[in-house]
């Protein structure tokens, strides 16, 4: 066996593998960024100046921020303790619950919206009774929030579940032996130790809610100022004034990018190795 030749061959193989890997990474990057480049290339400052102050755009922007904010806060308030109990307790059907939590990630949003309509619509499973007592959910701003919660909550829940599962139970158990109630332990030990991860999960949830389209138009409809969020405004504008669509799209991309950057920075500044 020629050791030298063998070594050479191995070196060549290693280099070839590296080259291929680099090419693949490049392909992935280009594929994901080029569409956005195409979008941004269509924009001129004049275009933004003309259309961003537009009343429809402004209304859509504030409605989007408001509904996504409410959706995110709701997901945090209910999802945090729920995810904690879920990851700290063994109960029958736990795997099933895990699957249900992930379901909205793979479900087409239009199906999500349609299902919400069939549940909460005024002829729906629950909506029929809500309608009798005078509550109509569909086509309201509340419906926008509900659609956003449905599609975006997995981003927070998955993150929270993972964080709580990874957290060494010794911290909370020590706190308990020291006389701390379970509530106090949750507030003063568990939350601070998982905070940066929870925040990045919440930001992802907010970003997903901000981009939500399919479930919203199905369940909440499209009414400027009431249910027309930015993605809906983009779609509606595409039917008429393409420049408006481009202007809002760029705004949405800018907000999303800022959010993702914030997540990166937050996760990098993670203080505790727990």
């Amino acid at each position: 066996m020629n050791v030298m030749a063998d070594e050479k061959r191995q070196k060549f193989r290693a280099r070839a593998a590296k080259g291929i890997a680099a090419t693949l990474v490049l392909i992935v990057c280009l594929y994901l960024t080029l569409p956005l480049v195409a979008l941004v290339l269509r924009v001129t400052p004049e275009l933004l100046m003309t259309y961003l102050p537009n009343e429809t755009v402004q209304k859509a922007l504030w409605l989007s921020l408001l509904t996504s904010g409410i959706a995110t806060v709701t997901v945090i308030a209910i999802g945090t303790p729920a995810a904690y109990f879920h990851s700290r307790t063994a109960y029958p059907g736990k795997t099933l619950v895990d699957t249900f939590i992930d379901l909205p990630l793979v479900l087409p949003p239009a199906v999500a919206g349609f299902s919400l309509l069939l549940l909460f619509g005024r002829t729906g499973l629950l909506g029929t009774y809500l309608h009798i007592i005078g509550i109509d959910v569909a086509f309201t701003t509340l419906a926008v929030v509900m659609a956003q919660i449905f599609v975006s909550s997995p981003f927070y829940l998955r993150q929270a579940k993972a964080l709580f599962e990874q957290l060494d139970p010794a911290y909370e158990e020590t706190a308990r032996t020291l006389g701390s109630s379970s509530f106090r332990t949750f507030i003063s030990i568990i939350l601070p130790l998982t905070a940066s991860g929870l925040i990045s999960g919440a930001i992802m949830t907010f970003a997903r809610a901000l981009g939500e389209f399919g479930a919203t138009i199905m369940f909440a409809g499209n009414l400027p100022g009431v249910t027309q969020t930015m993605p809906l405004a983009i779609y509606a504008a595409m039917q008429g004034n393409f420049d408006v669509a481009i202007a809002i799209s760029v705004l949405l991309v800018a907000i999303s990018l800022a959010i993702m950057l914030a997540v990166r920075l937050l996760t990098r500044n993670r203080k505790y190795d727990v």
Partner: protein
Amino acid sequence: MSDSSARKITVLFVLCAVLTAALAIAGCTGTTGSDNVTTLATTPATGGDIVVFTAASLTGVSADLGPAFEDANPGTTVTFNLQGTQSLKKQIELGATGDVFISAKTAYTNDLMAGGYLVNETVKKLTSNYIVVILPAGNPGNITSLDDLARPGMKIAMGTAEVPVGINTRTVIDNLANSTLVSSGWKEGVFDNVVTYETTEPGVVTKVSLGEVDAGFVYESSYKAAAAGSLELVPIPEEYNALQIYTVGVLSDSTNKETAQKFIDFLLSSEGQEILKNYGFTSIS
């Protein structure tokens, strides 16, 4: 050791080949347009296959038109790209390839003709359609006249001001508002009751069919295409109605202009017109 790394490299090569092939195929389909803009996904027609960019309001009738043409012309396949006319127009302008364009708005057809996207001599008027008001089965809003549409608390769906059905709906509402058929302040009342402006005509039909709104402005063809008993109708007199004219033409980028023209001929034939009539479209003589 070297055996496993060799295997890894093989796997990488295979992955690379698959990706390259995928990109090559994507590249081939994308370079027909003169603009170097992003190409929207459509399959190019080859042999007897044609892609018909079709106004969404023809969704119902397309299910009959396609098979009828295929039966009459063995070896052909018709694929419909059903979307709002404005979306279709944008896709064509951005380089999407297809063979036939059926438009619900003549102005958009004229734009495309001016831009060289259509073979101008092939463009014909296809059919027409009236606006009607549809109600869910059982009429939950208890709407018995056009006046009832303005009653506070009614929920109405209509198209956006940009899509053809929405444009015609507004024309009809204006015509009615100036007539003696409705009370004063009717138009404002109707618009106050709108809970959603849908971006396609089928979107309006869906919300009415589900009973989530009390009424919707759609084309007569959608009422005819719906299952019997699933919708109720409030007609709008012809003299106040806006007739939606549909136009059809062969796309300049078509790779199968022969079959495309055949399809248009079929649509304009008595057989094609009969199918359209069954779905509530009104022939243009």
